[in-house]
């Protein structure tokens, strides 16, 4: 009897990696969903190249998908993988730096050929030695030839046969992690069953053969058992940040009693928001795929003028193109939400990689004094709530809102306890109610918000536009009027502070070090702060979701700590914003511009250094 090694880990990170055409994203997603169904808490991180099909076998064409599963609440997809599935030498090379010491590497030995070594630019034919992977568990599996052998009995062309390779790997990993295959089988049947039963059969056959291969050769396979995490009771689903964002807006429209309009242009990594909303004609969503980014926001502004909840979604370069129109919505004081799923910049930059470098663009990237509200989501699932709240602020305060997410949140997924609509706060759009008293720029004395009268409402006919106006809505070049209106527009945004919660401190309210983060880094921030706290350090976390305006108690929170460190995936944009808005503190910085999330280890190292100094 062979002895199976069972490794019990609290958390385990698995990375699937291959050519961008190898189906790694699907493999990873299916594995994550299967795990989530078993009750594991999971967090995923797709990492794919910007070229849809980069040259096969090259390092640039490697597509990866990492999933972390665990017993406790998982907040990150894991810095370093415990298991790597590498479909070719390029995938091994691209991921060598992201492996836990002693990790297991399952690789397609068939693809470790001279030709592929050359494509991935190895100097020798001993990939493992060259990459210094001596202490790693090497698991060579002839994935390509086994897949071919497995499908020999079917009359399938070579291309279709090779496209089943990922199912072999998936079957094998499912065996390793003791996952049942029924969910995946159901998925394959649904996807191919009716259209091409032959392809369905092939995928199922290879999936099972992969699973059985793992079972048969268990003498060489370390097995991981990962226990379900104890979490909140309720109904759960797996959701990624882009879907959560899209759904947040549908929920907001329903709550507000308005129709939802999205005008948008496809751009990585934000496209999925437009797709997710285009799917929802059943809920009456009007989706308009515009001719460009500018038309995306301009159609949204038009829809807002016509009385809809109107949004547009984009990423950094598209956000830049929308700047002028965003200024129009500031001036016209129309409620729109612009979602910026940030990616690496400047220019085209790193389209598929994450970064937080559009913060200052969001705050200031327009002509004139052009204040608006800026929010940032911090986990894939809370994108739902921040999208919802962005819409609430826009509709109740007649102001454009920028919602910042990022590639990591947008593509990353996690199990989410779904709320019911009655858990969400009411949304009361500021519709005009008295035509006798209506003037376009009459304001509520408390909130400074104007009223929203839309075409079709009788007795409210009026004109707005990009030119400065007086309260009655007439064009005005009066110096005093512009001076005052500029201040009013700024004050109106500041008054949104009354709608936002106090800044929360995670950990003790005072201590040696306050770690400050914002937006999509939350998972890694909280994990690293937990590590410090477990080690007995007086370290707490303050993570910002409300960027403009900042929570009321920000300065008070900061005053209770000896040191403050601001961690962000840029050169220090939030830190410089805090220096301006919350002066009087020394803000240390941890910055990373690699197109990747923070790793818990690097954060911990930085915090330790700061405490020693």
């Amino acid at each position, binding site marked *: 009897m062979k002895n199976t090694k069972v490794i019990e880990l609290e958390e385990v990170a698995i990375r699937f990696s291959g050519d961008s055409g190898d189906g790694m994203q699907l493999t990873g997603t299916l594995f994550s969903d299967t795990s989530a169904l078993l009750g594991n808490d999971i967090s995923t991180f797709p990492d794919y190249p910007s070229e849809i099909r980069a040259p096969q076998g090259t390092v640039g064409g490697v597509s990866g998908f990492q999933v972390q599963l665990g017993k406790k609440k998982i907040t990150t997809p894991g810095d370093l993988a415990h298991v790597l599935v590498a479909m070719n030498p390029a995938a091994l090379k691209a991921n060598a730096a992201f492996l836990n010491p002693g990790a297991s590497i399952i690789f397609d030995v068939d693809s470790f050929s001279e030709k592929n070594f050359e494509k991935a630019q190895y100097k020798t034919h001993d990939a493992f030695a060259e990459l210094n992977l001596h202490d790693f568990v090497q698991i060579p599996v002839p994935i390509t030839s086994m897949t071919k052998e497995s499908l020999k009995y079917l009359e399938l062309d070579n291309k279709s046969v090779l496209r089943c390779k990922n199912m072999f790997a998936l079957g094998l990993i499912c065996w390793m992690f003791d996952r049942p295959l029924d969910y995946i089988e159901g998925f394959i049947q649904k996807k191919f069953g009716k259209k091409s039963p032959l392809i369905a059969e092939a995928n199922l056959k290879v999936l099972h053969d992969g699973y059985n291969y793992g079972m048969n050769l268990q003498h060489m396979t370390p097995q991981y058992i990962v226990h379900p995490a104890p979490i909140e*009771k309720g109904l759960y689903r797996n959701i990624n940040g882009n879907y959560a964002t899209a759904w947040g807006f549908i929920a907001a429209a329903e709550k507000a009693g308005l129709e939802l309009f999205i005008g948008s242009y496809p751009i990585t990594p934000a496209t999925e928001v437009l797709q997710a909303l285009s799917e929802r004609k059943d809920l009456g969503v009007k989706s308009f795929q515009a001719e460009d980014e500018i038309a995306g926001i301009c159609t949204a502004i038009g829809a807002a003028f016509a009385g809809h909840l109107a949004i547009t979604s984009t990423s950094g370069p598209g956000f830049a193109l929308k700047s002028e129109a965003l200024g129009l919505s500031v001036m016209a004081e129309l409620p729109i939400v612009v979602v910026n799923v940030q990616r690496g910049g400047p220019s085209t930059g790193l389209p598929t990689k994450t970064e937080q470098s559009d913060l200052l663009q969001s705050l200031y990237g327009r002509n004139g004094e052009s204040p608006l509200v800026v929010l940032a989501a911090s986990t894939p699932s809370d994108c739902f709530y921040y999208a919802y709240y962005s819409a609430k602020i826009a509709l109740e305060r007649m102001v454009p809102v920028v919602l910042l997410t990022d590639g990591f949140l947008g593509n990353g997924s996690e199990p989410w306890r779904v709320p019911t*609509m009655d858990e969400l706060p009411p949304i009361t759009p500021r519709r005009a109610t008295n035509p006798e008293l209506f003037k376009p720029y009459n304001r509520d004395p408390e909130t400074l918000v104007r009223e929203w009268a839309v075409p079709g409402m*009788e007795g409210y006919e009026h004109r707005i536009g990009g030119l400065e106006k007086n309260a009655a809505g007439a064009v005005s070049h009066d110096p005093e009027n512009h001076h005052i209106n500029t201040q009013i527009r700024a004050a109106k945004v500041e008054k949104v502070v009354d709608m936002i919660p106090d800044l929360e401190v995670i950990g003790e309210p005072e201590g040696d070090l306050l770690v400050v983060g914002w937006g999509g880094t939350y998972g890694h921030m909280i994990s690293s702060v937990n590590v410090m706290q477990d080690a007995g350090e007086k370290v707490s976390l303050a993570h910002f979701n409300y960027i403009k305006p900042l929570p009321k108690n920000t300065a008070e929170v900061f005053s209770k700590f000896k040191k403050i460190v601001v961690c962000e995936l840029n050169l220090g944009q939030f830190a410089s914003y805090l220096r301006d808005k919350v002066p009087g503190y020394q803000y240390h910085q941890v910055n990373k511009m690699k197109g990747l999330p923070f790793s818990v280890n690097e954060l911990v190292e930085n915090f330790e250094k700061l405490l020693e100094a």
Partner: protein
Amino acid sequence: MTKFNYTAKDFKSAAEVRWCPGCGDYAIMNAVQKTMADMDIEHKDFAVISGIGCSSRFPYYMSTYGFHTIHGRAAAVASGVKSANPDLTVWVITGDGDSLAIGGNHFIHLVRRNIDLNLILFNNKIYGLTKGQYSPTSDRGIITKTSPFGTIEDSFVTGQLVLGSRGTFFARSVDNNIKHTQEVLADAAKHKGTSIVEVLQNCVIFNDGIHDYITDPKFRAERQIFLKKGEPMIFGEQGNKGLILENGRLKVAIIGENGITPDDILVHDPSEDNLGLQVALINMTLPEFPVAMGVIRSVEAPVYDQEMKKQIKTVQAKRKVTCMDELLQSGNTWVVDGENCSEPVKFFDNKCFG
């Protein structure tokens, strides 16, 4: 019998009109206001959207809902307005710089989508608001402030662009011919889909007289041909000149000469999907031809805003998900209800919203 008995006055706002004395815009605005009054549609359902330029001040002078947007983007903003609320009657006021230069992309895509808007393009072949630079419709060689030695580029022909973008409606008129402009606008308003009306408009300050050769009322009959559905394409002081097709090309013929009879003259049918002939009519220039005025093309095609409405209705007729709660609970979900599980916390409670 009309329902509302509006007059042009009902569409004038209290704002002081600030175009230059003698500007062609005044006449066009009068025609628009008269057309709107005649449409017999409730005042509250009109929206006038403009971009940037002299003509784009237009909404301020109207008493309807109006939105003076940003340079080049009126077509995009109006597309959003009409898609959101197809019950509105939406007019776009724009110029040659606004729609054919900075807003060229929105213009062609608006036309391609065939959204039910009426767009009036004031073509004065110059940038007026910035004080006299050449525009995309300025003729090659024109001397302006930014082309002191003459331009070295050819101009757009608006109608070509519209038909090249699969336009369903294109008409042309002249600012000083209010009655005809009004007729054309009425046809544009009736058309289901994007109606583009190019009005040859005179800028008295920066390009005075640019269209005079065509528009001088003294020579109107000789230099313009007024195309009407179902009528022969006849023009001239004597009414004896007409258009015929010869070897596939348009030609001016004189009735009674060379054996030409009235039956040989082409009969105008804008509703016929005949791109070749319609482009040829658009392309006619003096002195060989008269310049074509009136509705040159008006064909039926699916209308974007109606299709959007219809698609939602079709999907909803068979929908399984009828509200957000159902969407949240649809698809792959699972229940967590273990012993060591905690009670759920509402997100917005958790975040202590006041």
